[in-house]
Every structure is written in structure tokens, then in C-alpha cells.
């Protein structure tokens, strides 16, 4: 017997509460889950031929500067380490993206791993999003030091996250958090966002 397996996102049950916190803040903070993003971990020698092949296959280079992100063609490549990147794409494209990357690196000493189920993504945006995140991280999130194109692996409220700044004029961040920590982090964000709720009139 084949059972139909439904896909659940780690924060599926939080959608209404995240939306309510967004409404309560009057737009000061926007919280939402971005479920099922495609995430592929790539490890290779940044100076080797595989890096060039990946650049041609994706249309964007793998960034070599620490804590930076390159976006283009619906994809984002985040620096995770001197030989490690996370390529993020739209939902449902994991097998195609993995195959493209595998084809590009060929037989070189490299690893391409689909890690889409490892983390889920949260959108934290709005004019007070920086203040909200500052409750839980000591990173300087001012656009002067953490502007568009910046990303970082760090601890937010003691949970390991990948933080990326959206390349728009208004402040906003993506937060990639491990599925098993997502519920905790969502609860923490909702609690921290209470401060930015507008007083009832």
C-alpha cells in the first residue's frame, strides 16, 4: 500500500501567529516563513576549475569574500566557509539544481549535497527588524557593516542561524534555521516582537 505523504514545513503551525504579530506591529516588523526553499550545500576548492564550472552552470559566481552572498537568476549563493557555500533556490527545484551542480563539478574533488530539509527560512523585515534581531545577536546589523549582499552564520538567541541581508532599500533579513530549532526561534521572535506591537487604541 502506498501512503500519500504530505509535506509539512517546520513552521506550518506558526503562520497565523507570525501574521498576527506582523499586523499588531502596524508594519514595523514583518515575520513570515518562507517554506520549502531549495538549499544545496557545495564544497569545492575555490581556486580550482570546479569553481569556474559552477559559475557557468549557475550564472552567478560562488563568493570568495567571507560573509557575503551573490544573487542572480532566482538563486543565491551564500559563503559558509572558504571551501563551502549554500546555494538557495525557489521551492521544488532541488533535484534540478543538484543535478546542474553535480554536472558542473564533474569528477573534481567536490561535494554537492541537497540539504533543503535541513533548514527552513524566515523572513524578518520592516523598519524595526534590525532592532528585533539585535535582541538576540551581537552582530552589528547596521547597513554600514551588514548591508545588502552580506550574510553570516552566527547565533541568534543561542540558536545557530544563517542570516542574510536582503538587497532592498528597506531593511529585511532572511533567517535560515535548522528545522528542529525553528519552533524555538519562531517563539523567540514572536516574544521579541511584542515590544513593537502598537498599543491598542
Amino acid at each position, binding site marked *: 500500500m502506498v501512503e500519500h505523504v504530505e509535506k509539512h514545513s517546520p513552521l506550518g503551525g506558526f503562520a497565523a501567529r507570525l501574521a498576527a504579530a506582523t499586523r499588531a506591529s502596524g508594519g514595523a516588523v514583518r515575520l513570515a516563513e518562507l517554506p520549502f526553499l531549495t538549499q544545496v550545500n557545495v564544497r569545492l576548492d575555490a581556486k580550482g576549475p570546479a569553481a569556474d564550472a559552477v559559475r557557468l552552470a549557475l550564472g552567478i559566481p560562488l563568493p570568495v569574500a*567571507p*560573509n557575503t552572498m551573490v544573487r542572480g537568476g532566482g538563486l543565491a549563493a551564500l559563503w559558509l*566557509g572558504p571551501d563551502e557555500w549554500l546555494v538557495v533556490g525557489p521551492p521544488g527545484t532541488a533535484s534540478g539544481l543538484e543535478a546542474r551542480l553535480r554536472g558542473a563539478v564533474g569528477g573534481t574533488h567536490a561535494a554537492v549535497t541537497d540539504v533543503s530539509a535541513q533548514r527552513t527560512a524566515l523572513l524578518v523585515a520592516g523598519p524595526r527588524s534590525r532592532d528585533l534581531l539585535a535582541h538576540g545577536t551581537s552582530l552589528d546589523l547596521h547597513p554600514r557593516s551588514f548591508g545588502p549582499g552580506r550574510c553570516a552564520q552566527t*547565533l541568534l538567541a*543561542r540558536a545557530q542561524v544563517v542570516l542574510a541581508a536582503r538587497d532592498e532599500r528597506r531593511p529585511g533579513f532572511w533567517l535560515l534555521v535548522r528545522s528542529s530549532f525553528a519552533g524555538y526561534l519562531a517563539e523567540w521572535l514572536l516574544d521579541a516582537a511584542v515590544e513593537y506591537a502598537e498599543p491598542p487604541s
Partner: protein
Amino acid sequence: MLLIPCPWCGPRDEAEFGYGGQAHVPYPQDPAALSDREWARYLFFRDNPKGPHAERWCHSAGCRRWFNAVRNTATNEVLAVYRVGEPRPVTG
């Protein structure tokens, strides 16, 4: 909290790092040739200076790379950080 400058990621909270003990402790060339006393000395004996100490750290919550740092054990001041394989820089 200590602010430790990761050679890749820049200054980060101490909580993101793991400590790896004294740096520059070479594995014996021919371990089988060592006496028990020499082997025990390699395994268990480490410097315990009051002052600059070269030690290994791992940025476990960040880039997950190991690196070396010279830390003043009396003041917790991080005098230098350098990547694995690089020689210990001269610190004042």
C-alpha cells in the same frame, strides 16, 4: 563576553567558539619508538603560562574552521589570530 576575531568571519562572541587546547603540539615522528614516559608527556602535558599562550579555537557556530590564537591567559586579551599552518606571529 570575550570577542574573538575569527580569521575568516571577523570578531564574534566567545559562545560561537570551541576551545581546542594548546597549539603547535606536533604528533611524534615515530610514535612506536617513544617510551611510555615520552608518550605520556606528548599526550597529557601542556604549557600553563601566565601570559601569551598559543591555542587552537574552532568557530563552531560560524564557518566551522579551526584556527590558532595567541591569548594572554592573565587578561584574556586575544593578541593575534592566524590560520592553521601559519607560524605563530610575534606578539608583544
